[in-house]
């Protein structure tokens, strides 16, 4: 059984590669259509007793998927351990909240500003710190995440610990009305952006920047010798990851209507990282699956109420022990040695 699932990713990729164009298009259309139709598929198998299924689809499931894809660019593709990813999410959300309540700009005008600010903070954090090695980078990014939160708590101009309320909703698109009561349009909005981001990441991964990230993850020094500007590639990975979180933050704030700084704590960063690693680091479909599972499971088992986070924690440990490379691991073509028991240092996702 384990042997079969182990090859699931490669089997899937093989099938995809062998498929003619019409089958690929058909499968994509079915998959995308299924995702858009999800809010209506409220059957007992996947519904969430104790919380509204359609809301759960938007947050946490949709949001986690988007953020996990963004963090995967940083951690999975280029191997930089970022423990403060929530900071960029917070910056996006706060941009939406501040500009939405203080100015007449609408959602679509604020979105690029929010993304721009998230990217700018990515540059500001990344430029000095990305020369640090893995574990040091982890603690510095963790610190950055906490600093953004503490700054928001202690600055009364942006609401202090009470946060900001009365964030406007996006204007209507055709017949879809964005109201607090109906999470469906937000879910579709989020899904549309997520699909765009997946498309962008897949394009990038197959081209020069993606190969540069691969090289940097495997060996920083060799990548540099091969003529890759490692510093610039790393900052770009960081900034793109930040941009994705920024998009997520802006959409999140416009749906939730009021935000408080404590929503943006370290646990969010860690959960998103868990999604990436749990699903299969570096492989975008694995990451999506991981995010769906980790976001959905606590809601699905809400009937356990008290011990549900405990169950979640134990499940995390058990899963990592059984499948250390995640549910859908990345393709293993980088390895010469096929026998897993003898591979001490796999180099996959290894932070050097």
């Amino acid at each position, binding site marked *: 059984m384990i042997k079969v699932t182990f090859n699931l990713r490669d089997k899937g990729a093989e099938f995809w590669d062998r498929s003619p164009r019409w089958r690929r298009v058909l499968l994509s259309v079915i998959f995308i259509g299924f995702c858009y139709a999800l809010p209506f598929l409220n059957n007992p198998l996947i519904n969430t007793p104790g919380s509204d299924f359609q809301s759960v689809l938007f947050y946490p499931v949709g949001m986690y998927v988007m953020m996990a894809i963004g963090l995967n660019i940083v951690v999975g593709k280029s191997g930089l351990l970022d423990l403060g990813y929530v900071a960029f999410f917070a910056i996006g959300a706060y941009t939406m909240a501040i500009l939405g309540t203080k100015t007449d700009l609408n959602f679509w005008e604020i979105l690029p500003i929010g993304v721009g600010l998230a990217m700018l903070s990515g540059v500001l954090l990344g430029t000095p710190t990305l020369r640090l090695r*893995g574990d040091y980078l982890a603690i510095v990014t963790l610190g950055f995440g906490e600093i953004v939160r503490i700054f928001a708590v202690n600055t009364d101009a942006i609401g202090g610990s009470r946060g900001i309320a009365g964030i406007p909703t996006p204007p209507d698109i055709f017949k879809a009305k964005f109201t607090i009561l109906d999470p469906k349009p937000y879910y579709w909005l989020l899904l549309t952006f997520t699909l765009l981001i997946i498309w962008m990441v897949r394009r990038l991964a197959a081209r020069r920047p993606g190969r540069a990230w691969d090289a940097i993850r495997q060996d920083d020094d060799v990548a540099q010798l091969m003529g890759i500007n490692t510093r610039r590639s790393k900052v770009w990975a960081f900034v793109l990851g930040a941009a994705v979180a920024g998009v997520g933050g802006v959409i999140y704030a416009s749906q939730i209507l009021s935000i408080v700084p404590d929503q943006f704590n370290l646990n969010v960063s860690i959960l998103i990282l868990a999604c990436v690693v749990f699903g299969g680091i570096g492989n975008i479909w694995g990451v999506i699956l991981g995010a769906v599972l980790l976001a959905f499971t606590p809601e699905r088992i809400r009937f356990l109420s008290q011990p549900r986070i405990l169950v979640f924690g134990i499940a995390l440990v058990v899963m990592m022990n059984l499948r250390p490379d995640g549910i859908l691991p990345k393709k293993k073509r980088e390895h010469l040695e096929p026998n897993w028991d003898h591979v001490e240092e796999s180099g996959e996702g290894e932070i050097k």
Partner: protein
Amino acid sequence: MDFALLRDAFWMLTFDGLALGAIYALISLGYTLVYGVLRLINFAHSEVFMIGTFGSLFATGLIGVKIEDEPLTDGKMVFTLLFALVIAMLSSAIAAVLVEFVAYRRLRKRGATKLATLISAIGVSISLVELFRIMTDSLPREFPRIMDKTFLVSYAGADIRNDKVIVIVAAGLMMVALDQFISKTRLGKGIRAVSQDENTATLMGVNINRVITVTFFAGGLMAGAAAFFYILVYENTSFKVGFFLGISAFTAAVLGGIGNLRGALFGGFVLGLMETYTSAVFGTAWKAVISFIILVLVLLIKPTGLFGESITQARV
């Protein structure tokens, strides 16, 4: 900004900072020991500390000291102090060994990636926090006053409180003991060998599994001692106590150069002092920000921390 407070109460703050720093230093030793041997951040170490605080509570409960009791005196006080300290250290050490067994051992044998191991440790950490949250009904717990807290001497406006003196002195003794253990004993030599080169150490006949267990045990003992000192001074604990102390202690370990024992000590004291000074000047809300800014500045100038990394260098 309140520099007058810093000037007037400088020695008072220094003394408090040293007591806090001693606790940080003891916790950061656990991070640094594990990092030296496994090259991994032990994310569950903050929970090992948290379990130590509950171990102390359990110990006083066993003796039958109650919250409303008067502070103990003489022999009974000394006995209670020592008993609670030992129980705290043991409970933390056992917890640390179990953490290694559950979260690390299997993954290490399969040659899993660093990130997979990190997530596994995070899973253990989440589980332990949740377990204690459920067991304590999310409420903080008070610790009975074992000893009468009096001021021993007053120097330049600084009142030297006896419990903090005990903390600083006892923490110093523990550190010396650990240092001797690492540099003098056979097992300590094994730990140094593994942190220098795991493969060569195996070839030289070092039992890696035992060395790793001992490392976690030693780190747990230190965290347990820190937990007892913490609860002795601050007299309360909760399921989330590990989080902030853990982050600070980890920062301290990185500041001094992770993997380096003496660096961790130095980092702990520097961070304790810095946090106390900056919270006097900028208010307690900003102390974490200042600590992190200083950490970033240090890392930018010296990317491996103040003393560089390596347990082996700690001998010199």
